[in-house]
């Protein structure tokens, strides 16, 4: 019997195998680079980082930091996604509002956190500054994607909706939201990574009590690069885990978005 090739991503065994090969290749490259650099301070080797991580991860201080950063990352992601989707939707649907919001959006897109860090530090408690920084970074990315998603709605269906005088909310739920879905998926993927990265960087700046970034900065000041990498590794694992959780959720969500 003839087989049809599948365009689906390889889940299960081949995907996992390829992932393992990729991970190994990555570790190998890292090891080689570490040997080439030849300095533990600049680039520690993978086994050295593994030892540092094995020392660090079971400590109470680490677990508290992990929890703090996790909550901040999720919060930043949630805010970026919700606010970005709302603003993107509005901009996509109303060209006039898009023009009106555009100056403020450009300011948000281009202002580095450092320029407004003083304000941020004064207005927010130190634990919230990383969230603020991450939202500042991820929100415009979500807006861009959602806006484009709204524009990608099928013009034939929009014509149909106009002809049958669908209510705005029916148009949004039936035509715009499904058109948006793939854009929202890539926006989430992009934003999730940004949030982890920037939350940790923001923690380095604002030094809240329980934070991966605070720990990382402590290690950085002492030039304990292997420990810096161990803290980073924790951030990467958070990213990978939430990625996986998010992918799972995505497979369930689309149905929930549809009209009852």
């Amino acid at each position: 019997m003839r087989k049809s090739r599948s365009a689906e991503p390889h889940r299960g065994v081949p995907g996992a195998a390829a992932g393992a090969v990729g991970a190994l290749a990555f570790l190998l490259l890292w090891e080689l680079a570490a040997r080439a650099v030849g300095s533990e301070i600049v680039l520690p080797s993978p086994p050295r980082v593994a030892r540092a991580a094995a020392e660090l991860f079971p400590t109470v201080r680490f677990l508290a930091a992990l929890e703090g950063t996790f909550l901040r990352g999720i919060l930043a992601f949630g805010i970026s996604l919700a606010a970005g989707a709302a603003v993107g939707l509005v901009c996509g649907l109303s060209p006039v509002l898009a023009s009106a919001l555009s100056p403020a959006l450009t300011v948000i897109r281009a202002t580095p956190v450092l320029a407004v860090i003083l304000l941020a530090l004064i207005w927010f408690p130190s634990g919230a500054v990383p969230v603020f920084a991450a939202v500042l970074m991820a929100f415009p990315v979500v807006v861009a994607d959602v806006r484009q998603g709204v524009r990608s709605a099928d013009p034939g269906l929009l014509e149909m909706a106009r002809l049958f005088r669908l209510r705005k909310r029916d148009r949004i739920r039936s035509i715009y939201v499904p058109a948006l879905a793939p854009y929202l998926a890539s926006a989430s993927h992009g934003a999730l990574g940004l949030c982890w990265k920037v939350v940790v960087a923001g923690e380095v700046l604002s030094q809240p009590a329980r934070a991966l970034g605070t720990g990382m900065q402590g290690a950085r000041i002492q030039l304990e690069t292997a420990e810096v990498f161990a803290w980073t590794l924790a951030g990467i694992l958070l990213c990978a885990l939430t990625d996986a959780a998010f992918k799972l959720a995505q497979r369930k969500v689309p149905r929930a978005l549809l009209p009852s």
Partner: protein
Amino acid sequence: REPTAGASVLRLGALKGPSGIGMVRMFESPPRLSRGDTLELQAVPSADAMAAKLVAGELDAAVLPVNLAAKLYASGLPYRLAAVVGMGMVSVVTTDPAVRTFEDLAGREVHVAGQGATPEYLIRTIAEARGLDPDRDLNLAFRLPYPEIAASLAAGRISLAVLPEPFATQALAGNPRARVPFSLDELWKEATGRPGYPMTALVIRDAVLRDRPVSASALLAAYADSIAWVRAHPGDAGVLVEKHDLGLKASVAAAAIPRSAYVFIPAPDARADVEALLAVFLRIAPKSIGGRLPDPSFYAEIPKR
């Protein structure tokens, strides 16, 4: 990159910001070294970048925090401490008239610039010596970076902070109610019996000391001259700081110089002070200096000219 027998270029890294002020005259007129060796100066933005350049072997000499010098030495890098070039430049600044003695810090939020750096360990050591538990009795806040602490003091948003120069000077200039209630240097002397605490040091590459001793001592002499000149001419030094883009405005630098302890103490003379400070690091954060006090060969013997 070992210097060869012929003439060569020695590269000296200066930290941007207050630490660089002391050597500004060398930027203006680079000294001639012996045997046609020349000196090339570069301003490095941060301690990180300085460490990176030392690790990569891009510099023959550098100015950097004392603990960092010890850490790099402990990691096997071929650099030795040649001189201490900056002593304690940390002050308590407050806008609150009620703060008069160190004990008045108890129970209040004290903003400290730089967790894990000299200001924090300084406060901890003094507190312990005066019978306070720094973790229980003091409320140290690390969330604001240096410039933001100064800004917040000036704007009256916070009332109590520990600041290095030139930020202490800026805070004092920005808010007429701000003052320095007592000298941390004095308290340090009481706590440790040492006259001061070194903050920045000059390190030189081993091979330079060994193969080009004359050039090395010429470099040190030029550095010492520069510091003497800077202390004598704060206004002119401020102008040069701005001209050579060392990260401070002329006026700020000029105001900070008299309040900063720019010194030049050759390594053998500085050893006791350095060890006293490193002992503090060793006790509180051993990793930050490599887990042990550096051995005697860390302190370079410079042949006199």
